[in-house]
């Protein structure tokens, strides 16, 4: 079973929930797919024993073969190639690595070379098989790296995916094909607005979901009302608690700082198993 943890709004407690769920679950794979700002390692403190560079294929030109016909620039949907008279300009950060330019080139003047966009690290944290991706600073495209992180999922084992905030391509890439998505929100207008967007996204992807309301007593009742109206199960509520905030600030997982939550997380796993896709 693959469980993803997402939220729409940032800072609602995705990583808090994902790491505590993993710790209470035991034998599990943990994949931090927030490759722009990965934080789960701060809490799980894995011992990293594998480091793999991830690249995307970008064009490299053999000028001796190029006759500047401009077909490569014409087919590139991402404006990553410009041909001006006797010059070919590449903008590698715009390249999606689709291979269209080398496919079309009649002179076979373009070959593809790997351009590093980040790394995948794998290690262990107790019983947890830990994997995360780290996007290089200045690099715009997270999805190809997220795909590589997810390649490490062993079929048949249980996996938890920590996604980034938002609802666009990096989040879709992270949660896609999971059996269940846990949406972590807070009971505020911002939390509710972004929760609705996340729910719409999951419906489009046909992934069942449930909600965790964090800092459950800080705002209003609207999130709860929305979940009832939409028939979305609220699987856990966590009140605002200075001890939780402080533990988080020091990188201490919730269930280590407040062991009384151990039971709720074990139950949460059981409930998810019941609600998940298969």
């Amino acid at each position, binding site marked *: 079973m693959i469980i993803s943890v997402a939220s729409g709004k*940032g800072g609602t407690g995705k990583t808090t929930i994902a790491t505590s769920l993993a710790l209470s679950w035991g034998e599990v794979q943990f994949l931090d797919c927030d490759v722009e700002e990965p934080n789960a390692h701060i809490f799980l403190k894995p011992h990293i024993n594998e480091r793999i560079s991830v690249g995307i294929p970008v064009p490299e030109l053999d000028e001796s073969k190029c006759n500047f016909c401009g077909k490569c620039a014409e087919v590139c949907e991402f404006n990553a190639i410009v041909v001006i008279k006797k010059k070919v300009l590449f903008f590698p950060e715009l390249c999606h*690595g689709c291979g269209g330019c080398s496919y079309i080139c009649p002179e076979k003047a373009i070959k593809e070379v790997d351009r590093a966009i980040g790394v995948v690290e794998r290690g262990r944290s107790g019983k947890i098989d830990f994997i995360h991706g780290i996007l290089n600073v*200045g690099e715009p495209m997270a999805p190809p790296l997220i795909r590589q992180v997810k390649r490490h999922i062993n079929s048949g084992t249980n996996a938890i995916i920590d996604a980034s905030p938002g609802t666009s391509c990096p989040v879709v890439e992270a949660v896609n094909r999971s059996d269940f998505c846990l949406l972590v929100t807070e009971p505020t207008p911002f939390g509710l607005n972004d929760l609705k967007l996340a729910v719409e996204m999951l419906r489009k992807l046909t992934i069942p979901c449930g909600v965790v309301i964090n800092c459950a007593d800080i705002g209003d009742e609207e999130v709860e009302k929305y979940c009832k109206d939409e028939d979305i199960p609220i699987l856990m509520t966590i009140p605002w608690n200075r001890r939780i905030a402080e533990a988080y600030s020091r990188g201490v997982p919730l269930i280590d700082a407040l062991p009384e939550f151990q039971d709720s997380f074990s139950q949460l796993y059981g409930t998810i198993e019941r609600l998940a896709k298969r």
Partner: protein
Amino acid sequence: MKQLTIISGKGGTGKTTITAAFATLSDSHVVADCDVDAADLHLILNPSIEKSEEFYGGKTAVIDSDKCQQCDECIRVCRFDAIKDYVVNPISCEGCGVCVLACPEGAVGMVRHMSGQWFISHTRSGYMTHARLGIAEENSGKLVTLVRQQAKLIAEREKKEYIIIDGPPGIGCPVIAAIAGVDLLLAVTEPTLSGIHDLERVVGVASHFSIPVMVCINKYDINPDNTSKIEGYCSKNNLKVVGKILYDPRVTKAMVDKKSVIEYPCGEVSKEVTRVWEKVEQRLKHRENQ
């Protein structure tokens, strides 16, 4: 006219709260919500939409099943595993069009689809440009650029001094689109190990593009040791810490009441955010004189 983007790296540190407060405090600006896939600023500023336009971002491949001979050529060339059983999955399709090139039957075409909307609005704190990216859509970077262009046009027309941009979390393409070419960044962080880690990465992106950064520490009293660490990091990297904001539950009350922390009395928080704006404005003005 000067442009300021509020960023954070980590989500939920208070970008939108600060942006809304700045919109209340400044008297000559256009505000742009560039967190287009989880926009929240409208919940405080309550915009009345003056103009709404459709956004056509990318293209998606479509296979004509009448012409398709099931030769598998499209499946072979697609790098994104977007074609199964001769049907394109629009969520996986990147719109590169290589399948169109590869199909010997001319059975694959590309269609442009509406991937969002953008708006020009009026608020009690002046003009606002914002957008809504369609669900599970791509090209958020392009939409961010569009929202910024519209803000710029209005600022020029109305002779406004500042464009105040609410940025997205992270460090990827929408963030790069939201900070490219601006005059100053205000990074809002929190005294947590995650906050510090993410601040360092987003400051890295800023220096990659040579944009000056000021830092503001939100909820600084949650962990005073980490606050000192952030201050140490900032002084080592020549970043000015322009404010330290207390944790105060009234900030959430303000949000529930659809008011900025200037409009809703939040005690020390309101005062400190005002001081932050004064320092930011001074820096923006100072750049003008250079």
